[in-house]
């Protein structure tokens, strides 16, 4: 099944933009696992992550022409497609309704419009590394990266100055980077 063909990123993007089927096969075979890991890191409900992955690949196929190599690598673009789809699902009405019957288990209740920060012990991948961060940094990364809140929203919700939010998040990111390298 696995195609032995190896594409350069440039070739792969070009072929995908021409709606080339073998290129799609290659893309899925090489990136579905990494993207599925990303999605599972953001969405705790394992029953819907496969649906999100499906949606992500549909979006990649349909929006590949809007990918701009000057702004980043293909994987970065796909990662953000996966992250956005995951966060959209978390915020969707249907998903929120499904949570109403479940008890809140978060350890940091931020109140207001910001949802419960809920790092779980069985978290995978990038989120697993989060547990090594200091709590105040972890909250900020969780809210910004994993829940998709803007710095401004976080600033208002946590009553922390915007500049401080930005500085702390950047510091946390630098720290995370050293952890994954």
């Amino acid at each position, binding site marked *: 099944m696995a195609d032995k063909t190896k594409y350069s990123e440039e070739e792969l993007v070009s072929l995908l933009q*021409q*709606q080339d089927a073998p290129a799609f096969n290659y893309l899925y075979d090489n990136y579905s696992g990494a993207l599925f890991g990303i999605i599972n890191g953001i969405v705790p409900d394992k029953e819907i992550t496969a649906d999100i*992955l499906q949606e992500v690949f549909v979006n990649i196929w349909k929006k590949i022409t809007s990918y701009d190599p000057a702004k980043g690598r293909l994987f970065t673009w796909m990662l*953000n497609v996966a*992250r956005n789809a995951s966060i959209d699902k978390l915020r969707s009405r249907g998903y929120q309704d499904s949570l109403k019957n479940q008890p809140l288990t978060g350890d940091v209740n931020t109140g207001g419009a910001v949802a419960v920060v809920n790092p779980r012990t069985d978290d995978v991948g990038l989120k697993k590394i989060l547990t090594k961060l200091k709590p105040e940094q972890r909250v900020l990364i969780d809210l*910004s990266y994993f829940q998709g809140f803007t710095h*401004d929203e976080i600033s208002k919700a946590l009553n922390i100055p915007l500049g401080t939010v930005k500085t702390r*998040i*950047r510091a946390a990111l630098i720290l995370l980077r050293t952890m994954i390298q």
Partner: protein
Amino acid sequence: MNIQEYISSGIIESYVLGLASPEERAEFENNCSQYPELITARIAFEETLENTAKKNAIAPPTGTKEHIIQQLGITGKTITMSLTPVRRMNGLKYAVAACLVLLAGSLYWNISMVRKNNSLTATLDSTNTKLKGVDEKMKGYENDMSMIVQNPNVRMAYMKGMPQSPQSFTTVYWDTTSHDVYLMVNNLPAPASDKQYQLWAILNNKPVDMGIFDMEDLAIRKRPMLIQLKKAQSAQAFAITLEKKGGSTAPEGQMYVMGYL
């Protein structure tokens, strides 16, 4: 601007992970166009991120790929650059396209049906007119036939051609009760334009004028077979002569046919 400071400020991570604000993004992209080392640093982080993600990969459930391929309608054929990009249609677009095709088909069908209908109506009108004419003619024949065949009071005279025109042949039907006289022209040569045929009843060797007739009368009159002429109270024989136009009081022209009752 100290580019190294900028590189290590966390902006790269923030930008790549999609956490930078629109202003920060614009500024970062602008800086990238001026500082190639910024791009190098960005790509380095992107590669780290990709490697980390691949290390933490989770295999999706089996069948997910097939499901996606089916949903996208990817056929497995390679579409070359020279072709126009395939525009993928979702269900609604297919439905709309199908409706348009059906509508166009329906319109075409309607128009062709209207044309066909008009054509058929015209043909029908023409046929009806012809049928009416045929019907009238048929009634004429029927009347003539009943006169000749079914009326027991009718006597007839076969009028044979004279030696000058042996092919000529006519028949007279004489109703002995109503005294009506009908002439059937079986065969007579067309007269010159200044001449007319005239029928005579012959009683005791004396000719009695029965009237002039034209061949065209057969077409004009309702009776296609018979020409009705003057009444004859009595007759022993009939004869037809060719007279000057308007007829004569006594036969002057050549006799064409004659026959006894």
